[in-house]
């Protein structure tokens, strides 16, 4: 963002001029009685933005702005946004430009919302607390606020980052409408209580539940990110120990997901199958590294030890309840349809569906990626090989589904950023004969 395009600068300047024009009537016609309300709301908004930025909350203090729009004249309501937007910290440079942009954008949006609300006679319904009729002007005002905000945002995205305009704008609008509607409800309640005999104290109480809601939401996102990082770390530990090409687990997860989608499974099951693919070899953490990386053929005893890894893996993941049927997939992904697989030698329909999916995905990735003991084969050759083994080793249904999915979307295994930049020097490793063929 160092070099902001000149067009974007001009755009920001235009919007700032509009904002100044919105604020101008204040000089002429400000009623002295509303000054303290403006000051109180502005202070509240500024404090809220500061706290939100420091605690990394998602969302901003729109309820205060919208309450202002429902209570005050358009220029006064617009003024409420100015101090908070100018003071609050911004991410990235150029700082001044970004601050000016945020302030002018909010001023214009709040002014438009207050204007629409006033034109529909909203201020009288708020004073008379005339429900449900107060909802209509408030709804219109919230819609206007959201429209103006996202339209201005779409403009700056188009000019500075060359995002295609209409699609970007529609996405922005749909994503922000629901949260802003909830904020609008809170703002309406604030406005109604402000005008009631109980005064501004009661109005301030409305903000407390909103704050807690944001806090919980932020906590949820933090915890979820941490959880996913933990699972990734687990998987990477296996990949490093095993000495396969990195990312095998992630790719098997992706192939499992493609098969599941093609089979028309419900979204939750697709997600669970992705996890099944990612975690299928987690039991290799329990197999001595020496064995996994052994150069040359394995003795029968050594092979027996390695063939314990599905059971080790199941032992590890069986306590993680959200994995559901993925746990069965971890245990049974080396079973074969003809009953010659391991650990239990299950046959045909005895093998859980999830395991049959992961078995195909695992073999497919093993064939199409370069291993120290074999070169990568083209996708079409791998699919033909799978079809040859369908019925004896693999479930034909899964093989057909994979072939169809690859045919339709191609096979572009996503290489995540950290894997791409720290490409490891692969240690010489003899793979696990029999594990993938």
């Amino acid at each position, binding site marked *: 963002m160092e070099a902001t395009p000149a067009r974007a600068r001009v755009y920001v300047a235009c919007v700032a001029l509009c904002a100044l024009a919105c604020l101008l009537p204040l000089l002429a016609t400000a009623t002295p009685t509303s000054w303290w309300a403006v000051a109180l709301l502005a202070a509240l908004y500024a404090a809220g933005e500061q706290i939100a930025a420091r605690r990394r909350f998602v969302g901003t203090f729109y309820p205060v702005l919208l309450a202002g729009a429902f209570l005050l004249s358009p220029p006064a309501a617009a003024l409420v946004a100015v101090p908070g937007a100018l003071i609050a910290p911004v991410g990235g440079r150029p700082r001044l430009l970004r601050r000016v942009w945020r302030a002018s954008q909010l001023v214009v949006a709040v002014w438009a919302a207050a204007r629409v609300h006033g034109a529909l006679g909203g201020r009288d319904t708020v004073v008379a607390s005339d*429900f449900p009729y107060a909802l209509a002007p408030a709804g219109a005002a919230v819609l206007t606020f959201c429209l103006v905000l996202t339209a201005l945002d779409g403009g700056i995205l188009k000019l500075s980052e060359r995002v295609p305009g209409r699609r970007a704008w529609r996405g922005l609008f749909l994503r922000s409408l629901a949260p802003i509607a909830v904020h609008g409800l809170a703002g309406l309640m604030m406005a109604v209580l402000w005008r009631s005999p109980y005064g501004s104290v009661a109005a301030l109480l409305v903000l407390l*539940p909103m704050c*807690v*809601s944001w806090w919980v939401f932020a906590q949820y996102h933090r915890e979820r990110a941490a959880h996913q990082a933990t*699972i*990734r770390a687990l998987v990477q530990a296996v990949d490093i120990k095993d000495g396969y090409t990195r990312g095998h687990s992630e790719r098997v997860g992706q192939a499992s997901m493609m098969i599941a989608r093609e089979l028309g499974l419900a979204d939750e099951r697709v997600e669970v199958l992705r996890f099944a693919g990612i975690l299928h070899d987690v039991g290799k953490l*329990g197999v001595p590294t020496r064995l996994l990386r052994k150069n040359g053929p394995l003795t029968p005893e050594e092979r027996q030890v390695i063939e314990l890894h599905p059971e080790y893996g199941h032992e590890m*993941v069986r306590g993680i309840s959200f994995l559901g049927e993925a746990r069965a997939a971890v245990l049974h992904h080396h079973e074969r349809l003809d009953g010659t697989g391991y650990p239990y030698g299950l046959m045909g329909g005895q093998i859980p569906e999830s395991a049959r999916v992961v078995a195909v995905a695992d073999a497919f990735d093993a064939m199409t990626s370069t291993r120290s003991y074999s070169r990568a084969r083209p996708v079409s050759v791998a699919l033909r090989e799978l079809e040859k083994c369908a019925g004896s080793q693999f479930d034909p249904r899964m093989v057909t589904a994979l072939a169809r999915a690859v045919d339709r979307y191609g096979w572009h295994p996503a290489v995540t950023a950290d894997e791409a930049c720290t490409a490891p020097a692969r240690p010489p490793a003899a793979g696990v004969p029999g594990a993938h063929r």
Partner: protein
Amino acid sequence: MSAAPCTTGTPPLLLTVVHTSAALLAAGSLLGTLWHGLDERGIALAFGVLVTVGELTRWTGAEGREAAPLGAAAALSYALLGEDGGHPTHHGVLQVGAVVLAASLLGSVPHIARGRPVLDHLARRVLTVGFAAVCFQPLYNQGTFQGWGPGYALLLLAVLVLTALCDALLAAALAHSRTRWPFGPLLRDELRATLGIGSAVCATGAVMALAVAVVGLWALPLFSLPLLLTQMSLRRYAAVRTTYRQTIASLARATEIAGYTPAGHARRVAALSREVGRDLGLSEAELTVLEYAALMHDIGQLSLVDPVPAGATAELPVEEQRRIALLGGAVVRQTGVPPQVAMVVERLADPCPEQPVAARIVRAVNAYEEKARDAGPGGPLKALEELRLGTAGDYAPEVVGSLARVLSRDCLTWPVAG
């Protein structure tokens, strides 16, 4: 995870007192309301429906905190309801108790059917709502608060703060008499929870009462929306916390499966460390860090080429212990758990005056577990004695003392993981 106290005789006095008073209040309100009949049926019905919905969407959180914010807020606002759209209401304390009790019972039916405990929750709800109603309704019905304006809002807030304190006290007392954990830290955790979700519940209760006074019953559906969203994200937060905990516990099993440590070692150390931490008065957040650190304290051994015999790290030379601890810290840092956990794991082998409390606890408990494991019937006592003697350098005296207390409370058996 909680230790099962071995003396399960008669229920403690405190528990009986709380349950009896709740039952008396409930019976009194029901009888009184049956005798007088319901005032303002529409309002009673609306609030009753809201409380029922709140209870239906309740879930039993992992930490037993307020899990039905909507139900609690609706019940409290009914207790503090003075006017409806500008017209004064006439329901008294007894009607508040009866409506809230009936609605809560109705909302609890699915929970009872699934065999979840609801008795404590109901007792708490009835007593706190009763408290709020007793503070507010008689004075209101005498007309004391007429024309107070903004003071009226502040009054509601004051009553709710008192109610929240009373609720925290009640919750801590119930938890104390159920688990025998020390009362002080339990109360502190409850008060901390009150600051978070509790304050939202109180504020929503007050705002709902005020909003209904201004705009009538329309305020109820409008206002429950934000709270319902909070409830949903709280629920998802609890779910993700649970899965996270399970994932960490599974990660900890990697060392057992790889044959570095005996089966169940990490889980036992974690459970016992949590007990000791609770006995020493750590907060809930500190207990979580302690538990994660205890679960992963051996994970550094995954980086070793040869397993330590029987995973007994406490017998190794200090230098070696420190090396394993640093390796473990490095592994833990990669797993994305809070950085405090990695710090605790890294400093497990430091001299104990320099260690954080959590590291002292994990170190002492780990040593106790390793010493007592295969030592037969007299093992636990002997192991504790060895720790006491080693106290000067390696193990913090207050931690060993607390460990002895916890173990004697649990009759020197392994804590049962809950």
